[in-house]
């Protein structure tokens, strides 16, 4: 390498570093891939909200569905709620995981804001949440017909998230089931 070219080494190093830092600006460190992708939905036996019956894993799998982890103490869940109502109207099955919440508060919430859920799994002590790798509500899991978790979205599901990420996957999973 000529001595002239050597002069450019610092510039090249700087450019490489700048590229990495630029990339770092765009990355969201809170966006972690779930450890449960392509793994079966964990086993559980928990009460169903608003009734005395217990539900288990077998009761909620069998078709492509969303599992929405929510709580009344979670502010973003309130933001998300109207859109979940819309999705239910479009015919998307949604199961709720009422995460570390009070039953009374949760029932009142559903009465006031509408109930988009097929049923709600009462996860009062967060044990199902822990098995799912939940670290904060709201989180939404896309589970296929065989009960395997295929995608996890952390944060609010809104029209953009549904259109850009969840819906394409959802359609794909529906078609997977057809043949």
């Amino acid at each position, binding site marked *: 390498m000529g001595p002239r070219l050597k002069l450019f080494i610092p510039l090249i190093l700087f450019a490489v570093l700048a590229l990495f830092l630029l990339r770092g600006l765009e990355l969201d*460190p*809170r966006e*972690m*891939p*779930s*450890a*449960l992708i392509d793994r079966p939905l964990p086993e559980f036996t928990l009460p169903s909200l608003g009734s005395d019956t217990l539900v288990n894993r077998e009761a909620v799998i069998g078709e492509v569905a969303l599992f929405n982890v929510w709580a009344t103490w979670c502010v973003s869940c309130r933001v998300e709620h109207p859109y979940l109502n819309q999705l239910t109207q479009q015919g998307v099955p949604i199961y709720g995981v009422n995460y*570390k919440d009070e039953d009374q508060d949760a029932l009142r919430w559903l009465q006031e804001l509408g109930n988009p859920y097929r049923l709600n799994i009462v996860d009062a002590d*967060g044990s199902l*949440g*822990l*098995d*799912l*790798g*939940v*670290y*904060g509500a709201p989180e939404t899991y896309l589970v296929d017909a065989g009960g395997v978790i295929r995608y996890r979205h952390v944060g609010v599901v809104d029209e953009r998230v549904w259109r850009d990420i969840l819906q394409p996957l959802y359609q794909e999973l529906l078609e997977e089931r057809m043949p």
Partner: protein
Amino acid sequence: MNRSCAIIALLLLSCFVMPATAVIETYEFSNEELEQRYQHLSAELRCPKCQNQNIADSNAPIAQDLRKRLYQQLEGGASDSEILDYMVARYGEFVLYRPRFSGATAVLWLAPVLLLLAAIVLALLVLRRRKDSGGRDDSELSAAEQQRLHTLLDESESGS
């Protein structure tokens, strides 16, 4: 006067403000060894919510849950690696402050060693090249250089 009284009163009052200490629950361990392992593991496990704290330091609800689970597992007789496997299965490699060696983390673990080796090799190369270029002190001139120096000096003297 009034104002300074008020300030002094405020300062005095501030002495009585309770520090907002995080309530971190305490667990009763059946033996000392379990407690030590608890301290060790809770410092090794990273809180998934508040990402730059371990679960021992964090007061996030999820950290509380993980500490509780850790306690239950220790008392249940699980080994350290079983507990770590359990956490990794749910929260991914991310929960380990010292990720395990695998294909994905190989770069992370090997980079320091490789960089150090590269630096040593580079240093040796530079040193050897310096040696090869005569092995003499650069402040001394070679015969040819002396000759050239003389000519230049002569030129400038005759020129002036």
